[in-house]
């Protein structure tokens, strides 16, 4: 199983991604998808600008994907992350995890997102609805806590 990792400016199509993942095979019993969208924060935001570290973004998501593949019996794994300006309602990130059974697919997708949040080198900056440039979004400790769920108990 070779994970598909893409960092791109353009939008993605969920149906096309699932079709590509499952084309020509009949052994997959479950595909779990997660899509992260841009919120307007009660009308406060006109866009998010996503900055990333080219090269490391692909490499780090690849390392997270390799960990997921070592942990669950996956038949496919896709991660697509956008950069550049993204308006409220638009898609930011896609994770697909495919397996013979649903449990592995659910868990692997959840794991991918938790680590993508805390390890993938992306940073969001706010553009406000009043036309002014907002600040950089601060990291949430909730996200660190979520990622820690996957670590073995001390």
């Amino acid at each position, binding site marked *: 199983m070779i994970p598909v990792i893409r960092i791109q400016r353009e939008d993605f199509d969920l149906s096309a991604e699932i079709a590509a993942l499952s084309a020509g095979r009949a052994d997959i019993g479950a595909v779990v998808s997660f899509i992260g969208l841009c919120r307007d924060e009660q009308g406060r935001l006109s866009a998010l600008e996503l900055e990333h*570290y080219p090269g490391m973004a692909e490499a780090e998501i690849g390392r997270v994907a390799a960990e997921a593949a070592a942990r669950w019996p996956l038949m496919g794994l896709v991660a697509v992350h956008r950069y550049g300006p993204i308006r409220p309602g638009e898609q930011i990130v896609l994770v697909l995890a495919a397996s013979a059974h649903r449990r592995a697919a659910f868990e692997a997708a959840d794991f991918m997102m938790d680590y993508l*949040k805390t390890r*993938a*080198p*992306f*940073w969001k900056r706010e553009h406000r609805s009043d036309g002014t440039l907002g600040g*950089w979004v*601060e*990291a949430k400790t909730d996200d660190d806590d979520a990622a820690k769920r996957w670590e073995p108990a001390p």
Partner: protein
Amino acid sequence: MNAVSPMATSATRTVRLVYFAWVRERVGLPEETLDIPADLATVVDLVRWLKARGENYEAAFARETLVRVALDQHHAKPQSPLGNAREIAFFPPMTGG
């Protein structure tokens, strides 16, 4: 008096430093190539050396423990040895996904 500058006798090595998000804005550069003293052992040693170079670095690293680092595109920690890393990146905690 032929005082020899300590810099002239110290070995240096060349690294590429890259900065992202508000670290980039505070430093004022997306990246730079610098000759750093070869005896800087760890990430935190490098951060303190950078802070002594100017107010922009001082501002970027005001909260030393907040800034994250990657050595040759692998996450590292303040106490990590610099080793032979050629590309050293500094950035805020990540907010992707």
